[in-house]
């Protein structure tokens, strides 16, 4: 434990960074982990707590150099933790409300669009079948 606290100045921001980027690189493709983001929030919060604990444990006993390292480590950890919390609890809500243009029981607006395989597909050609129309943000 002592070892971890002593190295918290680089371990903590590394953990927070890993928690931040792994959300976008890995966990967005796991629906339950994407929706709640709980796992990644715990990781980045853990990084931030470790940074503070590390700094606190070394504060009275170390040189100004070591203290500076811990201060920067804490700032880095809080940066990544803050960024993920901000994304999850604020940024991802900043969306226009879906307009009332289309309401239940209304006729679905028809469209004719090119597909990835090169044909043109129109909604009206699916008359007589049930259709799921999924609008998504993009290929990323």
């Amino acid at each position, binding site marked *: 434990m002592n070892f971890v606290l002593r190295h918290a100045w680089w371990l903590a921001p590394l953990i927070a960074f890993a928690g931040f980027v792994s959300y976008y690189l890995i966990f967005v493709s796991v629906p339950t982990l994407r929706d709640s983001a709980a796992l990644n929030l715990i990781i980045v919060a853990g990084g931030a707590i470790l940074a503070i604990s590390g700094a606190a444990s070394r504060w009275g006993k170390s040189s100004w150099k070591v203290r500076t390292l811990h201060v920067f480590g804490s700032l880095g950890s809080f940066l990544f933790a803050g960024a993920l919390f901000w994304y999850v609890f604020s940024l991802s809500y900043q969306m*226009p409300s879906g307009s009332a243009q*289309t309401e239940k029981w209304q006729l679905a607006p028809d*469209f004719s669009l090119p*597909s990835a395989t090169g044909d043109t597909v129109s909604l009206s050609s699916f008359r007589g079948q049930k*259709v*799921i*129309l999924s609008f998504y*943000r993009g*290929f990323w």
Partner: protein
Amino acid sequence: MSELQGLQSQEKEFSKAGIRILAISADSPEDLKEKLLPKGISFPLLSDPELEAIDAYGLRHEGGNPFGGDIARPAVFLIDEEGRIVEKILTENWRVRPTPELILGKFSDAG
């Protein structure tokens, strides 16, 4: 786009229930072909770079593209045999997407 992989995983269930899937984004046909077809999506991926259909359904998210530009907010519409909207599923933030299970459930509720 991970919701598309979710839909794909339940594709058999949907087709057994006589339900077809269409996916729409503001991506160009080339991006769809290069980046999404290799992921094994078998239902039609439609390209709406001018946001015609996206606007017709009131789903434009201005500046929503992380690389710049407007895109659609995530949304699922369920349409019946007569072409009527029987359900409109919007989530309150873009992180959360409707699951295939939820969609199937809504369709059975709608009869």
